């Protein structure tokens, strides 16, 4: 097997495959290294692929070429308690026109497709290859070591796109050995089988329209939320819970998941469905404050490995940031080859490109969002407040009605306390 390349990309997820694709199209001899039997075999996400302008640059007819399930035509948020729910939703025909605003998809198919495009463009795809270390030469990263007999690959530059725990970035000394448990979440997901017609009827969809819904109040008081995304003839439903909060609660993700699935209003939506697959993965939710060193001598970090994940509480963006950072890493590597300079200083251009892009601009703009998500009352008291209030407003029981402002004040005093409510409002205002 060939062992020397002009660049090595570790991890054939969205960040790595985008990087390898752009490099290969520019004529670089690039290796795309993946630990799974095929790209995407190890990939897990909630199910919502936000619009990726960087992939639209590579594929102007992206939505025709990529293996996608449905485009997102409507988005909703549900405040939930064990018995009640209050739902708000936005739907517009604008979201059913190209370029679509987002999609549902399956990662084993999507990642495989994107990596295959990189291979077709000339990248060398090496699967079943777990990178266990970086090779250093003269203090610079000069390749990677693969966990197998004689598994050594050389290149003057490596892109670490090996996911949230990035051991490649760790071995290169770019990320700290210990993660902060307060900056991490875990997503668990159940894939439920339902006929397409049933999904269309239950969620008010037609053709390849899809629905993306987020839930608050469904995590038993643990910081986090729920999600439901419609695929073509399956539904992805699950929870994202913060690891510090989960650990301290003593609760288990699967018990929380079962309570969520059994909540009466959600259970109706999933009735008759059969569980097809269960999956889980850690998410870097610390935002701007947890970004590792992005550049070293002979190495760049992209995607989840760089903690490029924007959890604002409204959207949870990751893959769009990953593909964009992968493309920018590729641009940097291409320029580095022209200059023949792979030093930290030479590769620092990557940071300038990131800073000028929405990736860093959004992460900076929402750098306080993780603080807001640490308000524990969001996950129980406020959803209860909303649901209780709506029940009072709608209930007709032959007694005189209170005004909505009085109701709100009473509920706030009872559930949260006015001082807390003001402080939470301030935190939320600052975050968003």
């Amino acid at each position, binding site marked *: 097997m060939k062992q020397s390349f002009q660049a090595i990309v570790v991890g054939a997820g969205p960040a790595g495959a985008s990087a390898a694709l752009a490099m290969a199209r520019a004529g670089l001899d690039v290796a795309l290294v993946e630990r799974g039997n095929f790209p995407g075999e190890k990939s897990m996400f909630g199910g919502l692929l936000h619009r990726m302008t960087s992939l639209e640059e590579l594929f102007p007819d992206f939505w025709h070429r990529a293996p996608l399930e449905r485009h997102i035509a409507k988005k909703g948020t549900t405040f939930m308690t064990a018995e009640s729910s209050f739902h708000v939703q936005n739907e517009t025909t604008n979201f059913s026109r190209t370029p679509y605003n987002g999609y549902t998809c399956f990662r084993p198919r999507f990642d495989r497709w994107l990596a295959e495009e990189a291979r077709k463009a000339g990248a060398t795809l090496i*699967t079943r290859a*777990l990178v266990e270390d970086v090779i250093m030469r003269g203090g610079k990263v000069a390749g990677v070591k693969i966990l197998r007999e004689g598994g050594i690959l050389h290149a003057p530059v490596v892109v670490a796109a090996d996911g949230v725990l990035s051991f490649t970035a760790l071995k290169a000394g770019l990320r700290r050995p210990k993660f902060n448990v307060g900056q991490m979440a875990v997503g668990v997901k159940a894939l439920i089988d339902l006929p397409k017609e049933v999904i269309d009827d239950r969620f008010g969809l037609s053709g390849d329209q899809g629905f993306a819904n987020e839930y608050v109040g469904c995590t038993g008081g643990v910081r986090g939320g729920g999600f439901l995304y419609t695929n073509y003839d399956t539904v992805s439903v699950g929870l994202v819970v913060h690891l510090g909060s989960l650990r301290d609660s*003593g609760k288990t993700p699967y018990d929380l998941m079962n309570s969520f699935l059994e909540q009466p209003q959600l259970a109706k939506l999933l009735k008759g469905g059969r569980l097809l697959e269960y*999956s889980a993965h*850690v998410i870097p939710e610390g935002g701007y404050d947890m970004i590792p060193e992005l550049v070293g001598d002979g190495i760049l970090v992209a995607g989840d490995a760089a903690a490029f994940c924007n959890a604002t509480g409204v959207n949870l963006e990751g893959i769009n940031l990953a593909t964009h950072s992968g493309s920018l890493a590729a641009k940097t590597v291409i320029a580095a080859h022209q200059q023949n300079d792979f030093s930290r200083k030479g590769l620092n251009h990557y940071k300038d490109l990131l800073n000028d892009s929405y990736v860093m601009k959004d992460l900076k703009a929402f750098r306080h969002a993780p603080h807001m998500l640490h308000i524990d009352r969001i996950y129980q008291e406020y959803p209860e407040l909303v649901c209780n209030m709506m029940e009072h407003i709608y209930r007709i029981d032959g007694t005189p009605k209170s005004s909505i402002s009085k109701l709100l004040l009473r509920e706030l005093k009872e559930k949260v306390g006015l001082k807390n409510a003001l402080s939470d409002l301030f935190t939320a205002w600052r975050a968003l």
Partner: protein
Amino acid sequence: MNIDEIFDYTSFSIDREPHIILDPAICAGCRQRGCVNSCPARCYSYNEAEGSVTFVYDGCLECGTCYIVCDRNAFTRWRYPRGGFGVAFRMT
């Protein structure tokens, strides 16, 4: 959903050797045991009689939770399974 039936839902190609190995001495002194409740696949269990934590790697989803929640770095090994082994998501 019954987590004990995980092998009915999710596919695995199980390696001969574990990819995560615990240091029993460190785990024996741990009172937090966040791994036991936080692992989404129930791979960790606590034996009260022996005061020990065990990890069964067969049904590991390779999610990374234990790596994050363990404050004591109780792992003498924490890596992903060798190339081609471990969890194999089909659709998800």
